[in-house]
């Protein structure tokens, strides 16, 4: 593979002005700062239907989003959707609630999932407008960016939907 071809894509999802919701944006910013060959970096803060366009043509895609509290702030979950799928809300969502899970479901039905895809969800605790990012979420985001930047945790095969790291 020619290293000048950006066939890897990281998409940071979330609003950096809403505290822990900015985890995905922070990971993306860190990845962008590394200026890694073969990597493109996109931040998605609004219309997540655009994810289907974002990853068109990409070989390997990493999506990073914040998640609602489940265990503890900063816990990182990893999914490989082709194998496990993602939890889709039981009720059909409005377009306002159209998130990563819905985009993946739609892409699956349309046959436009990337050939290799992994989704990281970083548990947040505070999603207030203008709020500061929880330190544990910030640490987790920076750690994930370092791992991805080192070529670890990129989508090469299926994995189970279990926490892989809890700082």
């Amino acid at each position, binding site marked *: 593979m020619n290293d000048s071809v950006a066939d890897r894509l990281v998409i940071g999802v979330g609003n950096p002005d809403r505290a822990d919701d900015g985890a995905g944006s922070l990971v993306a910013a860190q990845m962008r700062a590394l200026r890694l060959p073969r990597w493109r970096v996109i931040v998605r803060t*609004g*219309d997540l*239907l*655009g994810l*289907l*366009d974002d990853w068109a043509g990409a070989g390997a895609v990493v999506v990073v989003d914040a998640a609602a509290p489940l265990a503890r702030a900063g816990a990182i979950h990893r999914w490989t959707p082709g194998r496990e799928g993602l939890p*889709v809300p039981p*009720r*059909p*969502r*409005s*377009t*306002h*609630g*159209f998130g990563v899970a*819905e985009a993946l*479901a*739609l892409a699956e*039905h*349309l*046959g436009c999932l990337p050939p290799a895809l992994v989704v990281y969800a970083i548990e947040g605790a505070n999603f207030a407008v203008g709020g500061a990012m929880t330190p544990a979420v910030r640490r987790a985001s920076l750690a994930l960016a370092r791992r991805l930047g080192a070529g670890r945790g990129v989508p090469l095969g299926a994995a189970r939907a279990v926490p892989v790291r809890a700082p």
Partner: protein
Amino acid sequence: MTRRRLVVEEIARVEGEGALDLEIEAGQVTVARLRIFEPPRLFEALLRGRDLREAPDIAARICGICPVAYQLGAAQAMERALGLCIEPSVRALRRLLYCGEWIESHALHVVLLHAPDFLGYPDAMQMARDHRAAVDAGLALKRFGNDVLRTLGGREVHPVNVRVGGFHRWPRADELDPLAARAAGARAQAVELLRWAARFDFPAIERDYAFVAMRDAQRYPLNEGRIVSSGGLDIDLDDFDRHFVEHQVPHSTALHAALRGHGPYLVGPLARYALNFDRLPAEVQALAREAGLGPVCRNPFRSILVRLLEVVYACGEVERLVADLRRAPAPLAPALTLRAGVGQGCTEAPRGLCHHRYAIDATGAITSARIVPPTSQNQASIEADLRELASRHLDASDEDLSALCERAIRNHDPCISCSTHFLRLTVRGR
């Protein structure tokens, strides 16, 4: 006496959050309420004290799907307050921007929210499995609309390029040309979607709406014109208050609106179409007939067809406007001479007429603001739809009646439609 009460709670993500109450007693629908209970967002209060030049960007934040409606209404109102004369090329570029919004908003509503109702799917994701071409076409149209917004507005959600008096930055020809190049293909996709949707099975209902929409001197209305109604009203937008009144109802934090001397009225695609059919190009009129529509459509379920006709039209407008704008030099931004006054603006949001009224003082500070969005204007008509539909289907199960009511809401408004997908049904008393 048999009393039946259906409560559909937590309609989230409307322009407001809401619920539905339906009560039936002795075979009569006694209550049909669209309850909107979201706390007020206070945008009008937020605008007070701000410089008039900030209004377009602040107002745009009201909606992520139709920010242009709020942005252009605010800009237009301020320009009228200051007595600014807006150049034809600026008005044309704004119309082009608005076409982008209509295309993305309508495509989103048609394919992701409305069409599953007619095909028996719970959502577009499930529908995509069997109707991939239609969903692909809808997403492509949405992408095209978004690209128009991004090109002219700087970004697709809450664009930032509109200013009082014009635009901050005039697009280059090499930015406009790709939009025109894609417009014909987008139009063809919209026509195919129209033909697809025309085959749906539409519930038979004709409503006696009082239609209200704008009417442009020459073209199908978007960003300018007079306000007209099916009852013969024909007024300047400055006369809005003389003919329309907002009022509170106990069950909604969104103000209801009424046409003085009449009551509920309907804004949006059905109203625009009925009052402006003659403004559509002959080929769009022919497509309407092919889809089974006459010059007036009173069946709210068929609004999906009207939206698609409007997408077809808007795609054609993109091509025409780009050709015109390529020849237009970038206009000079007019100097703003501040003065105290009142300005009103009115445009056709995808969901219908959106009216703004602002008072400003001699320093350019906004002293009062009032924005009348289409959703609030349509609430009473939506309730009337619910009442009539429920009356015709009293023998339906609670589940079926609830589903029909959800569909009735989705007929009218993408934001309400979004929320109605969240409907939770509670039945109390049979």
